[in-house]
């Protein structure tokens, strides 16, 4: 099968859907001729023109608000917030408007839109360009939260996101965007709320999201050589969350390590840990371990960033600890 990058898989998904719906548009600064800050929009501007691939001023509230207004009056849209660190600027629009209108207005207006963003560190981008805020987003009813880890998942989930009648926060990762993976030529969608077991194993379960899925897989390889068999579960969407697959895996392996590059404190890993403690406590043979960023902003130089963010050593140590 052909291999393409995350960013290309996303662009394909967007282009396929834009061809089907002339009222679907993409709006953000730099998405036009420039091709997007992460080169996701690429040649979409040439394909669909200025009105549907719209360069906007650097006005995050304005852009998100605009797409909400368009959503309740008959259009669909994809907004790009190139770095998730900029999302706090439009968090009000996302939380107080996009997530609320359908509920507030008793179903009179729904808000179909995708807020595409790139989170995460490991690229030496320093304190204001390295953050993961998925836990903020996943805390708000009315929003859906998507975090793919492969180009295949990215494309299928993006198509589902575009066709979802609700606001979807689609969280890419800066490390993933240039990463290649197999993507079939034909169209497909991946439903929300279906975790993917990225690797089967018997001794411990790692639930990992986004880029850290790849770290978890590498750690699992390394541990295999030492005779420890690790299962890696990628939820793919945090809201809705496929609890069943996670619980099933934990019931099988009886040990759980959760990995993300967001901060451990208040991170979504805590939610997963709580669910497992609540619904599968009796199956656990060891305490649940969480691996994530240390409690400090993400610094610039590699010596510091690698210390703060979870690495292979941290993941392997956590697994060895639960396996005992």
């Amino acid at each position, binding site marked *: 099968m052909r291999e393409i990058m995350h960013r290309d898989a996303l662009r394909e998904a967007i282009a396929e859907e834009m061809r089907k719906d002339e*009222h679907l*548009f993409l709006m953000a600064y730099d998405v036009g001729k420039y091709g997007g800050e992460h080169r996701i929009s690429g040649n979409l501007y040439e394909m669909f023109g200025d*009105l*549907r691939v*719209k360069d*906007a*001023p650097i*006005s995050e*509230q*304005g*852009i*998100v*608000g*605009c*797409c*909400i*207004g*368009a*959503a*309740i*009056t*008959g*259009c669909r849209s994809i907004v790009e917030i190139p770095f998730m660190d900029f999302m706090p600027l439009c968090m*009000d*629009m996302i939380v*107080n*408007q996009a997530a609320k*209108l*359908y*509920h*507030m*207005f*008793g*179903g*009179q*207006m*729904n808000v*179909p839109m995708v807020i595409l963003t790139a989170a995460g560190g490991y690229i030496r981008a320093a304190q204001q360009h390295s953050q993961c805020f998925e836990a903020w987003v996943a805390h708000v*009813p*009315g929003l*859906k939260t998507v975090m793919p880890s492969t180009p295949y998942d990215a494309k299928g989930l993006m198509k589902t996101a575009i066709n979802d*009648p*609700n606001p979807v926060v689609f969280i890419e990762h800066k490390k993933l965007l240039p990463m290649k993976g197999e993507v079939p030529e034909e169209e497909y969608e991946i439903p929300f709320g279906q975790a993917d077991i990225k690797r089967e194993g018997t001794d411990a379960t790692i639930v990992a999201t986004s880029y850290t899925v790849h770290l978890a897989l590498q750690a699992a390889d390394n541990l295999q050589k030492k005779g420890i068999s690790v299962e890696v579960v990628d939820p793919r969407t945090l809201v809705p969350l496929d609890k069943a697959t996670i619980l099933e895996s934990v019931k099988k392996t009886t040990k759980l390590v959760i990995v993300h590059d967001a901060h451990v404190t208040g991170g979504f890993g805590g939610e997963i840990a709580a669910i497992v403690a609540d619904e599968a406590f009796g199956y656990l043979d060891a305490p649940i371990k969480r691996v994530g960023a240390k409690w400090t902003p993400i610094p610039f130089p590699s010596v510091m960033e690698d210390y703060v963010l979870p690495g292979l050593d941290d993941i392997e140590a956590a697994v060895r600890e639960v396996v005992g």
Partner: protein
Amino acid sequence: MESLKKLDKNLVSRMYEGMLKIRHFEETQSRVFRAGEQEGFTHVYLGEEAIAVGACLNLNPDDFITSTHRGHGHMIAKGGDFKKMMGELYGRTTGSCLGRSGSLHIADRSIGMLGANGIVGDGNPIAVGAGYSILLRGTKQVVVSFFGDGATNQGTFHESLNMAASFNLPVIFVIENNGLSCGTITASVCKVLENLGDRSVAYGIPGENIDGMDVVEVYQTVEKAVDRARAGQGPTLVNCKTFRHHGHFEGDIDIRDEADINEALSHDAIKEFEERMLKECLITQQKIDEEHKRIQQLVDEAVEFARNSPLPKPEDAMKFVYAE
């Protein structure tokens, strides 16, 4: 002041009726709310009737408006149904939002009323989006965004006017300049309060500073703006100077001097319109009295209707979180 005789007779009576509807609805709302018949809090539009009515008389049923926390007047002017409105204010299932959002988020998509809004300034980006959707769908609709002088100091004001101007959108921004931002006199935090319409210069669009107590002046100013918008000539900013009868919300303290309030109350938009009509022999005192009575009766019926409407089921709170 222009002679009312120059205007279409039907238009004059619609101006009058529209203002009376808001006046009676809001006086009643104030009374029943203060009597403890409703929960939560409520902001009434008393005194500012000429703005919503003058502006909305230029709109078609399929045109859009966005609104504020003080939204009843806007909804009535756009053709809102008294019963659905009172039902909503009483939190009953017969309300336009099924009683789930009350005064603060009153909305009716079927008449293009895209919602009152609890977040000061958030209506503007949504109006921009409705405007963008009009562009994309290629219709001749327009959007009127109502907001207070307080909201002009939000970033969303700047972002929205800049976007609407740059994208040449059919949006009319209407400032209801009552000089109050809740408990702060806006003049103490805004140097250009009097002529806020001049801010349009910063965005390269036309701006007007008008007497918001004169329904004819509002009507004619917004008429020009709507004509421009429908002709593809972009947005306009209209600053309507007005006076609000009550404090910020019902039951709130009023920070204005009593003498100033009394002086302002002597220039009531509706009373002066009645005097104009009488002077020009367009109406008789008897007809005026009848109109007041007729409309009050409609409001009373709506109140009775709301009082007798069922409360929502508690578990219906779980509905409308996600659209299917």
